[in-house]
Structures are given as C-alpha cells and as structure tokens.
C-alpha cells in the first residue's frame, strides 16, 4: 500500500493509530487523582510532541542516514517560525501561506548553509553549521530586531497590515476557518480527554512527514545516503557524487525543521529568537541520539521524552509532592519530599541529565533499544526481524 511493503504499511498504520489516539493515550490518569500531574494530554504539549517529532524526523534524515551531525538545525526552525509569523502579519491568520513560505524559506536557507558547510565533513561540518546558526541567533536577537522583534519575539500587532483580513476576520490562527485552538472535551467517567483541532492538524502533517521519511528511508535515495555514512570514499569510486546527495538530505531536513518551526508559530503565533540558539540545535541532536539515531521511531520517542520532562517534571513542586505523600506519616512524608525535591520542579534539568547518561551508558541504541529488549523479553523466540522500529541496515529487501 502507498508504495510500502506489507511490514512498513503495518508500521505506518500503527503510527497513525497511536497519533490519532494520543489525546486518550497521554491521559491515563483520572483528572482528580494525584497522578493527574503526569497526564500530558493537553493541547499545547500534544502539539509540541507532534511538532518536535517532525523536527526530529527531519534531523534524522540527515544525521541518521548520512551521519553528518548538524549543530545548527535550530536556525531553520527559527527561520520557519519567522516566515510564518510574517505571513500572519502581512496576510491574515490562515496558516497555509505561512507554512508554505516557512518550507520554502528554510529550504533556501538550508541550501545556502548546506552548500558552504558540506564542503567539510566530520566535526568541521558540525562547527560550520553551529557557527551559521549562532550568527543567525545573535543577529536575530540584536541588530535584526526590525525583522525579528528581538528579545520579545515576533508577534502580530493590531496595526499590522493583514491585507487579507476581512472586517470580521478570525483573530486566531486557523486553517480556512478551522481554528487551531478549538477543542472538544469529552468526559468518560473520571477521565477527561481533550480533542484539539490544532493537535490534529499537527498530527496529520506529522503523519505525512513520517510517511515521507519512511519512503525516503526505503528509497534508492535513502540507500545512497546510508552509503555516504557507511563509506563515502567507496561511494565516490562507485561513480556516485556524494555532495549532491548530502546537500539534498540537508535541504530536506532543513525543510522539515522549517515546517516544524512554521507549525510552532501556527499553534502559538510568536517566534522567539531563542528558537535558534545552539541549545535548541543541541536539543534536537539529543532527541535523535536519545531515541535512537537512524531508526524510524527513535527520534519521535526522543522528542517526546525531552518535551515531556520539560513540561511535566518542571511543574512538580513541593506542594504537589506533599499532595502525593499526604497519606504517609509526617516524618516519612517530609523525608520523601526532601529526597525527591532536587529532581523535580526546578531540578528537572538534573533528572534529564542523569537520564541522558543512563540511556547512553546502558542503551547504546537509544530508547528504541529499550523497546526491542522489552519485546524480546516477552517474545521467547526473537524473530530475525522486527516490525518496523528497526535500524535500516537490518532491513531485508525482497530480492526476487
């Protein structure tokens, strides 16, 4: 189906199902229970999962396949966001022109940076991309303020032209009238689920992005990219020019980043310069490695993992901890709170740092490896192949 073999089709269907039921899956705890703190099924976070999933999928096309480690991908995210917000400012709040422009502009930007940076490989390439991104960030924060609105971030003002905005035009982001912030809330017993249009908009695009990336992974082009990573010299002596392949991968992944940036702005029409900072570039690198570079599912898992910590763990404060352990005797309660206190709330970075180390020490293949190990534990007889969340080099190809 859709140009995929049976196994990949099944894999895609699973991903689609997971994505569509995310609002339910991420809301496992009843709304009034103490554990509701861990629920992640609210629109903002679900949107972020999908958007950073797209970002990481795109990054993985470059890093996972070709092995070129870009340390400046956040620049494309930022450029995408700025393009989209500018479309809001100039036309109206319909997200479509913004997203299209975001993809085009980030693609061109990636072409420029990629053309220069890909003249070098290894860490020299990484530093070139880092330098470009840091230059973009520093300039966006200061001298480019007329274009980027600097520290505050680019946003829409009431006196912006918005030439397509009618008399009673919609004043929030929308897709041909369907508002991104429109939600439907469903109560099922003590549970409550939020179905948000913005999330489903991101989710559909994320599925498309995933499907495209799956096609690329399985295509001759994807095979060539893996060849670049495996042995670039051999590739050249096989009659292939590696530079256009890597440049194409760089531009494609830059466009993914631009799309993600555009979506971020579409869900929340403000583009901050910090989106382009090196820490943001580092974040997508960490997402990809943490999840499992070169795998289809890994980057998405990694993106979800980091965003979950950032948004859920940072909100657990002492009051919440006391709430959880209120049933314990006071002494024990205080001891437990004291013990957990450094790792939650303002200590969420600490927990994240420790988990980075644990994952990379014990799970060299990233979170995907954890999934495989768990599955192997349940399945006594490990099958030679697995159903999708696999490294591409293990992919068998139908020969006949």
């Amino acid at each position, binding site marked *: 189906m859709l140009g995929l073999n049976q196994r990949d089709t099944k894999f895609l269907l699973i991903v689609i199902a997971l994505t569509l039921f995310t609002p339910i899956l991420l809301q496992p705890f009843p709304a009034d229970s103490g554990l509701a703190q861990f629920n992640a099924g609210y629109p903002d976070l679900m949107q972020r999962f999908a958007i950073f999933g797209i970002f990481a999928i795109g990054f993985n096309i470059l890093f996972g396949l070709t092995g070129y480690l870009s340390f400046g991908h956040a620049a494309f995210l930022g450029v995408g966001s700025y393009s989209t917000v500018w479309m809001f400012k100039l036309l109206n709040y319909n997200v479509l022109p913004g997203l299209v422009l975001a993809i085009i502009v980030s693609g061109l930007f990636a072409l420029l940076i990629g053309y220069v940076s890909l003249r070098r490989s290894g860490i020299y390439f990484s530093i070139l991309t*880092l330098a470009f991104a840091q230059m973009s960030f520093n300039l966006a924060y200061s001298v480019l303020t007329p274009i980027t609105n600097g520290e505050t971030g680019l946003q829409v003002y009431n006196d912006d032209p918005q030439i397509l905005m009618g008399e009673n035009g919609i004043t929030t982001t929308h897709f041909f009238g369907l508002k991104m912030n429109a939600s439907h809330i469903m109560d099922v017993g003590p549970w409550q689920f939020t179905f948000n249009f913005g999330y489903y908009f991101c989710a559909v695009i994320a599925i498309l992005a995933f499907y495209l990336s799956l096609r690329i992974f399985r295509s001759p082009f994807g095979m060539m990219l893996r060849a670049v990573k495996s042995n670039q010299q051999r590739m050249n002596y096989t009659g292939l020019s590696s530079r256009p392949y890597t440049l194409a991968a760089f531009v494609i992944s830059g466009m993914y980043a631009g799309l993600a940036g555009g979506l971020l702005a579409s869900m929340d029409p403000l583009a901050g310069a910090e989106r382009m900072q090196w820490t943001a570039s580092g974040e997508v690198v960490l997402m990809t490695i943490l999840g499992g570079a070169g795998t289809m599912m890994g980057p998405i898992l990694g993106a979800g993992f980091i965003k979950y910590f950032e948004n859920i763990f940072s909100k657990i404060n002492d009051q919440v901890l006391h709430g959880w352990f209120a049933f314990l005797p006071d002494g024990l309660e205080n001891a437990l709170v004291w013990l957990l206190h450094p790792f939650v709330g303002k200590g969420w970075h600490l927990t994240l740092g420790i988990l980075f180390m644990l994952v990379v020490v014990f799970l060299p293949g990233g979170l995907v490896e954890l999934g495989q190990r768990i599955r192997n534990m349940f399945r006594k007889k490990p099958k030679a192949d697995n159903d999708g969340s696999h490294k591409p080099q293990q992919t068998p190809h139908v020969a006949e």
Partner: protein
Amino acid sequence: MDVILLQILNGLDKGSAYALIALGLTLIFGTLGVVNFAHGALFMIGAFCSVTLQRILSWSFETIDPDKTDFLGNPATVKTPYVVEWFGESTGLAIIDWSVPLAILFSIPIMIAFGFIMERGLIKHFYKRPHADQILVTFGLAIVLQEVIKAFYGANPIPTPAPSAFTGSFDFGLLLGFAENTIIYPYWRMVYFAFSLVVIGGVFSFLQFTTFGMVVRAGMADRETVGLLGIDIDKRFTFMFGLAAAVAGIAGVMYAPINSPNYHMGMDFLVLSFVVVVVGGMGSLPGAVLAGFMLGILESFASMNIIKSFIPGIDQIIIYLVAILILLTRPRGLMGRKGVMEE
C-alpha cells in the same frame, strides 16, 4: 594606535582564557579521542573551587551583639572567621584576601582526582563508541554537574575578588609615551595573562621534555603502535585526563575574580571553546593556543566603536564568521592533522 594596542591587550587576556580551555579540550581529544562536552563544566568547577576555598577560609563562629539588630529587629549575630580568631586580625584577613591564588593549590588535587574519577568511571567506556554517544553522555554529565553546583551555590554570580594588592590598573600609556589614561590595564588581568603563559608553557614542556610526555605524544599520533610497544598507554591517558581537568580547573580558579562565577559559566564557554579548538585544528595543541589568542584579539577589535559603526553587530558574530572563513580556506583549521574527526 593607542586604541589598537589597548584592544590587543584585551584580546590577549580573553584569548588566554580561550586558549587554556581549548588546550585541555584538545589534550583530551588528542589523547583519548573523546569529544568532551563536560569540559566547560570542569572550568566552572575550577571557578567554584575559588568560591569554596573562600567560604572555607571565611568559616566563622557567631556571637550575638546586643547593640546591633538584624533586618527583623532581633539582636544581630556577628560572624568572626576562625582564621581571624586564630591568626589575628591582619593575618587572618590577609589569608581570606588571598583565597583566589591559594585556591590554585586547593584545586589541583581536586581537579586531578575529579578527572581520574570521571575518566575511569565514565569516559573509558566511551572510547570505542561513536562521537555522538560521547557528546550525549558528556553533555548529560555537564548538566548534572552544573545542576549540583546550582543546588549548593544558587544561580546568581558569587563575588570572588582578587587579592586587594591587585586591584586597580597599570597605565601602559605613560610607559609608552601616550597621554595619561589612554592604555590602562588591570593588574589582575596581567596576572591572568602571565599565569596562562606559564601553564601553557608548562604543559608544552611537559609533553616535549619528559619521557612520559613523549609517550603520550606518540600515543596521540598512533595509539595502537604505542600499545604494541608494551607501554601501558591507558594509564598515562588517564593521567592526561586528570591533567586536562586540572588545566581547565586552574583556568577557572584564576578567572573567578574577572567574572563572578555562576553555575552556567561552563556552558557559556563550551561552544566558544569548541569553535576555538576546531579553528585551531582538531588534535593540535599549538593550534588550540594560537586560535585562542587569535579569536580573543579579533573579538576585541570587533567591539571597537569605529568597527561597529561600519558593520553593525559585528561583535556579535565575529568569532563565528572567522571560524567559517578559516574552515573554508583551511580545511582542517589552522594546524589540524588529516583524517582526525572527519568521518
């Protein structure tokens, strides 16, 4: 002319901090082949050694002074440092005053031990792993280290003044025949520059003139061959990691009076120091030092008003711009070897 001289002085000083960090980073990379994203954190820990020693030396006992009140109107407690109690007012205060230079002695064993533990406990498991994994694990470690420091010392900068003997600045202008106050330079920064030259010289002569250093240099060039000679290179490399940590650490100690240490100063330096190392050429010690000083001086020039008025924002991007230009004209940085970190 005087302006240019002044900015060269500034640049040398900035450059010496870059060079010291880049030196340690290159030592680790060159000997162990490990990309150490926690190196900035080592610099930060060094700076906090200064803070810690200052706190230890200022350790006080409290007496209640009924004549004074604290902010709530209760009788105030007055703190008297033990060193003052033991050695008398003038000696005691002088000891506290000199806590930053004293912290060098204090930090070296701490940093070496820290480097040993880090290498044996964590880094050695990553020699054969891809660079991406090394980045992830050392970045995780850097986050953990800075969060621990934040938990103990808070997020705000902590003042760690240089000894009062070094306050004020020296007027180079008078010396060179310019008008008064045209080229002034703080004493402590001169100390920092001289100190960095000593450390850099020390590391180079150690590698150049000791057998230990020769083996390590041979190992940097070709690890396997040296291993075949029956030399236990691993042990020496562990020591090199300790040495690199100590270099980063004392660089941090001495830097504390220039900028009050805070928990994220390591991250602030991390990206810059990587740029310096790469511009210098991966694995080249002289390259790292040269690039450090060069970028420091260029950064200082770029902050001059006259240059900023020609190219607005140039001081924001100069380092990155220079890095790009150098990498495009010299594929492996200033003095990089072929084939290092190019896959």
